[in-house]
């Protein structure tokens, strides 16, 4: 370029060149126009329009250095940016003569960025309950760029407008491969979008859930045991701890037709090991009930006794390693001589108390907002239990913090 050029010359400065670019794909363009002849005074003035939009005029410099390959804007060329072209529209360029009367065009470059270029992290392998964060980047000359997720994104997955993807798979999403499609949209006059997809593979999940019960000391009680697994299992074991020594005579009864054996074995006075085997050719899979665990409650004080599975192990039917085991805690409300009071919020945010105790016993319900003032307790109700517990609704919260206790009059 610049070895020769196209020009008109009219001593009366009358002639222009008209350059039309047709059949461009729809988009926003940057147009570079080069205009100069061999002589220092042979510059040009360019006026550009697309459809009815006029982008004004720009002139190259009338001076020396025209054949320089340095390509300085305003010297060797002019640039029109973000020229919007819709389908069927034409870019029209009028090349006017500069001060010398020469209307010269020697080169043209027309560029459209296209949709944003997206760069993302690699495919991921994660475990259940493990947060995966992937920072996505995109490039476009027409920023800023905003990111969104396609509608098939897994539940709970999010992406910030600046491209940070976040997701914590749940147990139910174990053993799945999730294709995540990220969209990036630029800020050009005609916003352009692009997408890319990566995979998040979630490891297996085995979850043992222990149920809850309540019972008086000196009695027996049972809690259900349930399993959720995303891989077929042929056996399963776990331990329950009894650090306070409330329980004795643990046993497990299978209530699942594929289970061939279920045993409870005391490891030490405070730990019980439960082992379940599956019939040959069968497997435990999905959400299923395993059975019930029963135990005697020894005489002693009242307590909320948690039952949390630990030291869990399992064997997969395909002999693949099972490393992602989770325990869901249950509990036994042990009702001894003392009352137990439990506070909770209902779904409508109203406060609820549950009073555990022995049937026939009468309790005063006291309340205060200041634990440091022993004289501030006031009686807010009286309950005579007809069962092992009673639920007491307190209505909506009126104080930021309120304390309750139940005492025998």
């Amino acid at each position, binding site marked *: *370029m610049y*070895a*020769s*050029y*196209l020009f*008109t010359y009219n001593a009366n400065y009358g*002639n*222009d*060149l*008209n*350059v*039309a*670019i*047709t*059949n*461009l*794909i729809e988009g926003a363009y*940057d147009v*570079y126009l*080069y205009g100069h002849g061999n002589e220092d005074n042979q510059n040009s003035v360019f006026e550009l329009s697309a459809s009815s939009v006029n982008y004004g005029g720009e002139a190259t410099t009338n001076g020396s250095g025209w054949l320089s390959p340095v*390509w300085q*804007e305003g010297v*060797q*060329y002019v*640039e029109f940016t973000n020229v919007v072209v819709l389908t069927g529209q034409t870019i029209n360029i009028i090349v006017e003569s500069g001060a010398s009367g020469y209307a010269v*065009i*020697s*080169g*043209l*470059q*027309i*560029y*459209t*960025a*296209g*949709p*944003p*270029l*997206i*760069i*993302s*992290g*690699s*495919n991921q392998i994660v475990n259940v309950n493990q947060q995966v964060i992937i920072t996505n980047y995109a*490039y476009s*000359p027409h920023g800023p760029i905003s990111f969104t997720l396609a509608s098939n994104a897994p539940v709970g997955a999010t992406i910030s407008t600046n491209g940070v993807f976040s997701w914590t798979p749940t147990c139910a999403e174990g053993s799945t491969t999730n294709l995540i499609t990220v969209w990036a949209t630029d800020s050009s006059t005609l916003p352009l979008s*692009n997408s*890319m*997809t*990566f*995979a998040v593979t979630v490891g297996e999940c085995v979850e043992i859930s222990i149920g809850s019960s309540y019972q008086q000391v000196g009695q027996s009680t049972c809690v259900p045991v349930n399993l959720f697994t995303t891989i077929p299992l042929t056996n399963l074991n776990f331990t329950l701890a009894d650090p306070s020594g409330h329980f004795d005579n643990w046993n497990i009864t299978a209530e699942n037709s594929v289970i061939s054996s279920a045993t409870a074995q005391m490891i030490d006075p405070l730990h019980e090991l439960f082992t379940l085997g599956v019939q040959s050719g069968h497997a435990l899979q999905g959400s299923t009930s395993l059975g019930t665990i029963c135990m005697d409650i020894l005489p002693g004080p009242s307590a909320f006794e948690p039952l949390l599975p630990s030291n869990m192990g399992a064997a997969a039917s395909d002999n693949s390693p099972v490393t992602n085991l989770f325990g869901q805690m249950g509990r036994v409300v042990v009702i001894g001589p003392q009352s137990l009071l439990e506070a909770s919020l209902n779904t409508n945010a109203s406060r609820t108390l549950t009073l555990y105790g022995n049937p026939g016993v009468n309790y005063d319900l006291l309340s205060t907002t200041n634990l440091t003032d022993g004289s501030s307790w006031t009686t807010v109700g009286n309950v005579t239990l007809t069962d092992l517990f009673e639920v007491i609704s307190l209505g909506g919260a009126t104080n930021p913090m309120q304390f309750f206790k139940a005492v025998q009059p």
Partner: protein
Amino acid sequence: MRYSRCLSLLFAVAFVAGAMPSSAGTLIDVDFTSASVTSKTGFAATGLTTNDFWNTYTLFSEALPNLKFVDGTSSDAGLTVSQ
């Protein structure tokens, strides 16, 4: 030099396993000349590579249809010059 920036990003992508980037940026170059075929290649104010293709518009020629992109593939775009 937007294309050169784009190019560096493309190189970066090559090292990201599993990523699937795409970019449809396009560039058309035209040299207005008295030669039948321009000898011009590569960059001017912008460009992609030193081998960028330049279309030739010869003085007094008819309309130039199907301008080629800098990689040599044809576009539907055309160019006309009139006085």
